[in-house]
Structures are given as C-alpha cells and as structure tokens.
C-alpha cells in the first residue's frame, strides 16, 4: 500500500467498518467522538468520507430516511476491500514500530 492515510481518515475508516453498513455522516461522527472523546465538525466528517470514497477505500449508496431527517435519505457508506487492506496495512506499520521500541527494563 503506497498511499498513507491521515489520522482522521483512519479513525473514520474504522468507524465506518465498525458500523457495518450503517455509517453515514452523523453516525460516523458520533462513533468517532465516542471513542476519541473529542468533537469534530460534521463538515470535516463529510469531506473525509468523500475523500476516502475518491480514494476507493469507501463506497456508498443512498438509502434509509427517517422522520427526524425530514424524510431525506442518508448516504450510507461501506468499507471496500481496498479500505480494509489499507487499514490493516497501517495497523501493521504501527505494530512493527511498536515492537521495535526498547523493552521496559524492570526497575527503571
């Protein structure tokens, strides 16, 4: 995987995967906020979602409206194979790097 993804991209990609087909703007936003404890703007979520889609890491379709949304449909995102590979790759990079940290010596 030649491309590197940013931290927010990674978080959002993970959230979409976690939500398993139920990921749209707000649910993704909530998911990320819940785990990280920081708040992000809706616009940032949308921009990132679309960027990830452009990169081929996400795919989407319109569906599922609710009364709360004024009968408007939402765009549901789903992670692609490529997205999964990307996530695993970045996890591996970290794992590899973690493993290289000198072991803590007892007593120090």
């Amino acid at each position, binding site marked *: 995987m030649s491309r590197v993804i940013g931290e927010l991209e990674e978080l959002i990609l993970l959230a979409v995967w976690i939500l398993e087909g139920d990921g749209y703007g707000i649910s993704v936003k909530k998911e990320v906020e819940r785990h990280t404890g920081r708040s992000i703007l*809706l616009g*940032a979520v949308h921009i990132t979602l679309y960027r990830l889609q452009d990169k081929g890491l996400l795919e989407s379709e319109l569906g599922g409206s609710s009364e709360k949304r004024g009968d408007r449909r939402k765009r549901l995102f789903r992670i692609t194979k490529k997205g999964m590979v990307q996530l695993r790759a970045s996890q591996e990079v970290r794992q590899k790097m973690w493993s290289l940290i000198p072991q803590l010596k007892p007593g120090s």
Partner: protein
Amino acid sequence: MSNQRSFARRLAGTLIERWVGRAYVEEFLGDLDEMYEDRLARGKFIAEAMYWVDSIHLIFGFSSTEKQQSHSMFIGNMIKIAWRSAVRQKQFTILNLLGLTLGIATCLAIGLYVYEESTYDSFHVNGDRIYRINQPMIWGDWNEQLSCMGPGITEAIRAEIPDFEEVTRIMFADEQLMSVTIDDQAKHFNEAKYFMAEDNFFKVFTFPFLKGDPNTALKEANSMVITASTAKRYFGDADPMGKLIDVKSPTGTNALFTVTGVLADVPAQSHLQFDMLGSLASVTGFDSGRSTWIWTIFGTYGMVKEGTDVAALTKKLQALPPKWAEPTTQGVFNQTFEQFTKGQPWTIYLQPLRDIYLAKSPTFNRFGPSGNPEFVMIFGAIGVLVLLLSSINFMNLSTARSSNRAKEVGVRKVLGSEKNTLVRQFIVESVLFVTVGTVAALAIVQLSLNAFNTLAEKQLVLLPHFTSPYFLGVIIAFILIVGLAAGSYPALYLSAFKPAETLKGKLRAGFKGTGIRNGLVVFQFTVSIALIICTFFVQKQLNYTRTIDVGITKDHVLQLYNMHQLGEGADVLKARLENNPAFTVVAKSGFLPPNVWTGDRYRAEGPNQPVVDLHYMRCDENYLPLLQAEFIIGRNFDPANAADKYNIIINEEAAKVLGYGSKETWRENSPLGKSVVQSFGSEEKLQIIGVVKDFNFNSVKQKIGPLLIMRNDNDKHWSYGAGFPSYLSMRLNPGSVSSGDELQRIIDGVKAEVAKVDPAVTFQYSFMDEEFDNTFREERKMSVILNLFTVLAIVIACLGLFGLAAFSADQRKKELGIRKLHGASVRQLVFLFSSEFTKLVALSIVISTPLAYLATDYWLSNFAYRTPINIWVFMAAGVTAMSIAAFTVGFQSFSAANANPAEVLKNE
C-alpha cells in the same frame, strides 16, 4: 418537524442548495436536521448556531469541488475565446479599441482638469470653518458681489460678533520694487505677488512654515515672510532669516523689512497666491481713517467657531453696515448711509473657502486666480459626451460584430452550453476590451499630459492619483460599468437565439439590432454636428472681436510700465524718447486701455443732480492724440493754458449719464464750460473742455462705460501721488517698423534709455493691440481645447460609422450581388447603400441645429459685441458632416457594389 423550520435554518438550507452540488444537498440537509434535533436538548440557540456553523463549513468544503464539475468554461478559457475572436476580426477589433481608447483618454484628461479645478483650497486644516466675507459691488452694480472689503468691517465684527474664532485681513499692494544688497551688490526685483497680511493670518490659513514662528512672524511692523523659492531667488542658499529687504512703499518712500519667516511654496491649488507677505502692522493708520468702509482692497476671511449656525450668523452680520458705515459715507461723500446706498441693501455674504475659486460671483480675486465655472461645466459636459459617444460606438460595433458569431453561439448551445455561460462569455469579452482600452487610455493621457498642460495652462498630474483608493475605485467601477453596459446587449440578445434558427442562417435576415444602432448613430452625429457649429461660432466670435472698431487706433502703440518708479526721471525719459525718430508721439498716462478699472462718484453741477459712477483716467495732453481719439466738440488739454490743469474731458456716454443728453441736443445744451462735481471729499469742481467719441477703454466684452479724463498732474484728486502707476506710451512711426528685427532694435534702444535714467527699474513693455487681444485669452484657450475635442468627437463618430458601414456591407453582400445580377448598376447600388446612412446623418442635422443654436446664443449673450448667428454656418456644418459621413461610408459602399456577384454568391 420539517414544517416548523425557522427562517435562519431555511436560509442556511437555501444557501447550501445554491452553492453545494445538487448531488449532496439531500444528505447534507438531512444530516443537519437530524443533528439539530439532537442538539435541541442543549438549547435552541446552540442548536440554531451550530446549524449555521455546520452549514457554512459544508458550503466551504464542497463548493469548490462543485464548480469544477458543472461549469464547462473557466475564465482562462473565456479569455482565450475572446482573444481568438478579436484576432479573427482584426479590423473591427482595432476600430473598436481605437474609438474606445480615444474616448476614455479624452474623458480622463477632462476628468483630471475638472477634479483639479474643483478641489482648490482643500489643503487648509480648518477649511470647512473658513469663510471669505464679501459685500456688494458698491462701485457699480450692487447686485454683483465684491470680494474685497474696507478694513472697517473687521473692526465692527471684532466689536460685536463673537461667533468668529478669528477674522483676518490681507491687503492688496500694487506691484512693488524690492531690493536687497548682498555682498555690496544690489539686486532688484519687481514683485506683483506681494501683499500685507494681519498677524493672525496663519491661525486661519494653513501655510506651513519652514523657518520662523507663525504666531509672531507678522506681529511687528516691517516684518515679512517669504516663500522658499522667493528666498532662493533673493538670497541663494544663504539663510534668509533676519535679512533686510528694501521695499519702495506705495507712497514712494523706502522702508526696510526684516524676513521673519520662510514658508513652503504656496500650492498651485490655492486662490491666494503670494511670494511675500508684509505685516499689515507696517501700514500705519489703515483702520482709523474716514474711508475705512470704502477702501475696498482688503480680502477679509473669518474662521467661525466649531458648530456655528452660519445662516444665523449671516443674518447677524447684516446689521453691521448701517450701524458702522455712516461715518464713512458722511465723511467722504457727505451723504447719509441711505443716500449712499440709494436704498440698496449693503449685504454681507459668507462664502465658504472651498467655493471661492469656482464661484460665479464675485468673479474678481485680487490675490490670485479665480476659476471659470462655465468652462468647467462645458468641459465636464464634453467629457461625458465624448465618453458616451465612444461607449455607444463600442456597444454598436460589439453588437454588429457579435451577430457574426451567431453560428458559434448556436453550435455551443447545441453542445449543451447554458445561457448563463454564454452571457458570461460576452460580458467577460467586453469587460476585457474596456480594460485594454482603459489601460491604453491611461498611457496616452500620461504621455500627452505635458502638451495638454501647455494648452490648458495647468499643472495636471496623473500618476500620484494611482495611490488613491478612490481613483482606483472609480477606474475599476468605470471598467465594470462600461463593460457591462456595452456587453449586456449583445450578451443577452445573442444568448437568447434559438440554435436551430441561427444554424440555418435565419438570423442574418432577421437581425433586429438596427433600430437601436441607428438611434445611436443619430445621437453621435447630433453631438458631433452641434460641436462643429459651436466651435465655429466661438472661432467666429473671437475673430470678430479682433476686428471691432474700438474707436482708437490700437496698432503700433508701444507701452512702458513702472514709470512711477522713476519718479521725476519719467519726464527726463519722456524728453529723450521724443527725440527718437521711431516715435511720432510720446505720452504719459495713469492707465492703459483696455485696463481702465478705476471709478469714482460725480454729479453734474446744479441742484438735485443725481450722483453717478464714472470711470476716470489720467493722462497728459499728448495721450488722446496718440490714441487718435476723435473729439466731437471742444478741444484737447492745452499745456499753455494753466487752467487746464483742473479741466476735464469726458466721453459721449459720460455726457449722457451726467444729464447733458446726446450730441443732437448739445446745440441747445452744450456740456462745454459746464462743471462736474466730485461727489466726495472737498467737492472739487472740474470744468468740461471737450467731449470725445466713445472708445473702448475696457475689453470689448463690455459695452463702453462713461469716462472722465483728467490731467495726470491734477493734484486736487486723491489719486495724485508718486505711488500711483504711470506709463509712457509711444506711437511707432509705421515707416520705421518694417521688420521684426527693426522693432527689436527700437525696443532694445528704449530699454537702454530706461536703464540710463534708473538701472533699478524693471523694463517691461507691451503693445496695446496685444493687450486688447489678451482680454480674450481665456476664450481663446477654450476655443483651442474645444477644437481639439470636436475633432476627437468627429473621429470617434466616424470610426463608429465606418465600422457599421463595413458590417452592413458584409451583411448585404448577397443582396447587392443578386441586385447586380438583375441589372442594377454600380451607381444605383452605391446610392442604395449610402442612402441608409445619409438619412441618419440628415436626421442628425435636423436635431442638432436647434440645440447648437440655443447653446451658441447663450454663450454669445456674455458679450456686448456679438458676431451674428448666420444660417450659412449651420449649412456648412451640415455639409461638412454629410461629406465626412459620405466619405466614410463611400469606401465601403464602393467595394460592396463593385464586388463580383459570382464570388459573393458562390458559397451558401
């Protein structure tokens, strides 16, 4: 829920719909609403505010992506297309740009001139509180204003009116001879821009000091402030402070003035122009004499206190003259205030400082230049007209040109171009054109500014304006407005075409812009023809004034100035000049026509004779013969007759106003031997010994006024004394001035004679006919500039007509070809083709004639002697316009008519 959305949310929604791509709108709005519901728990305000924050964020985040997807053309693309179509039709492009550039350059130059003229005196810090105090023209028409007051009004204001923070006076002083001695070398200067100012002058006006203290510089008697360049002129690089300058005072005595301050040079845009200011304290007793209300040589300026009600103040001032002027009228004229004013109100006016330069009245300013509001108006109007003409041209040609692009538009529409995109394309093109034209015009103006300045006698500058955001704003606004206006018609018209029709070629036959285009051509030619006519009459009037018989022979009279500075030496010089064979007569006088401005009050001797204002001039017995003035009855002064010293000669007009009637009635009631009484002072009687035929002693702009001529050695009149100007005039022997070289030799000879008598006196001379001519300097200047702009207007109109004719020729190629096939001759075709334009020009002639007549009639009414408004001028202008138009169209029509029909018709 959705039906309860607040206005703020609906607005945000609309904005998103407007700017964010259609594909996203649904989900975004859905998300926003959903979040809003969640956030309501934390308060409506927060929910509402966050809705907006998110909306704006989304708009910023997604609008840029959007643009690239739906607009098929970028601005760069538009410029490329504009450039291609400009190059494809070179002739149109050049005509179009040339006309536009000329128009903008003209308007810009005029704009600079008008701006400069209307922003005089704007550098004074307290300018909005400074007023010049004016009064009626008490020496003539009381309805006119006089910009100079007697010194008395200031005393009265200081005593009674507390609303002024300061009132200051500046006193007119005649030309002075100044001398300084540097390293034992005497240097002499003749100073015309020398006045006396009161010590608080610099509290009112902002003239920055380079050296010295503005508060005290003019406090002491015999102190003087000078400008930097004057200091340089007198003392070079030495420090002028404390240096002495010898001033020959008006009474002939010398006084030494100490330099107590150096000012930065007075800005050109000031109605007060001086090189040196003496302290008013040097003039002893100026405000204590009897004549303090009528000695009208004091410019009086008041600075009102902050927040003063000027209207109420003006009302208060009206009480002053009746209360304070009576001692003057009694003491000088033996009249009560009412008798003196003859019941006319002695109004006191407050004129705002910044209005002074361009005010219609008072016209005369003793202390510097005064502008001509009429010129500014005329030129402003011409500037706008020329700009309008060239903008119209631009629109006209753009419209005409764009119809050639109908196919392009059709193809684009078929390929999916939206109407908006097309409109934008045409407007961008036209704005680009105007931008190029404006930049070129700025360059042209900058390059030709020197020439224009020489012509208009101005110091206009362009470059410094570029630092002003206001100027740049005007330029940009101008580009956008003209660009939009000129581009909008073709843009809206063309983009509305139905592609199917334009592609079939239907547009050509049915192109409808002709009505408007013809209207615009008529407008252009109306303006051009009217300008031709007006210019012609201005020229005609100027020529006419030169040929008016002024009643005296003004040619071949050489006049020497500053003779009063010679004192007794003037007689020595006169005797020497009389021996010069180049001169037939040499005479001495106190004034020179056409500049006899002085007047006084007189009445015929006898009970109940009315007091009248007469001009007067002083001269010796040689002057009237030198002028070749014609005596109707009586005789000239006779040096052998001692009584003649106090006798006078009057002109016909004076005889009339004094009540002696006209020359037909003189047989019964001759003015000869009658006396005229000075209606002031000791009421001296002056006996009339002759009446001369009226001659113009002032500019021929004016009618001849009543004139009284007294001997220059009449010492009973107050104007007798060494300080009053005197002149020597010489009539040249026509035989001795056969060439310019010879004339120069004579003048050099006179100069040497003057230097022999007194080397300190400045040698200055003029010719009387030139002085008469000079009274029309302003008009001549105007005429030159008017000629220039008329030519420009005609050129612009012709460019427009040429372009339209070319366009029309192109459009009608096939029609003419078919006509030719059917047997029409070239002559018939040319006639057919030209008649369309000829009709337009003929209509313009009809419209412009009455307009030009009114304008000319109005302008000529300023003059006492008018050139007649002849019909033939109108006809000549019409013929000129017609032939220019015919010439312009002719070329096109010939080439169109001569074309080979086979060539024209072969492609369909």
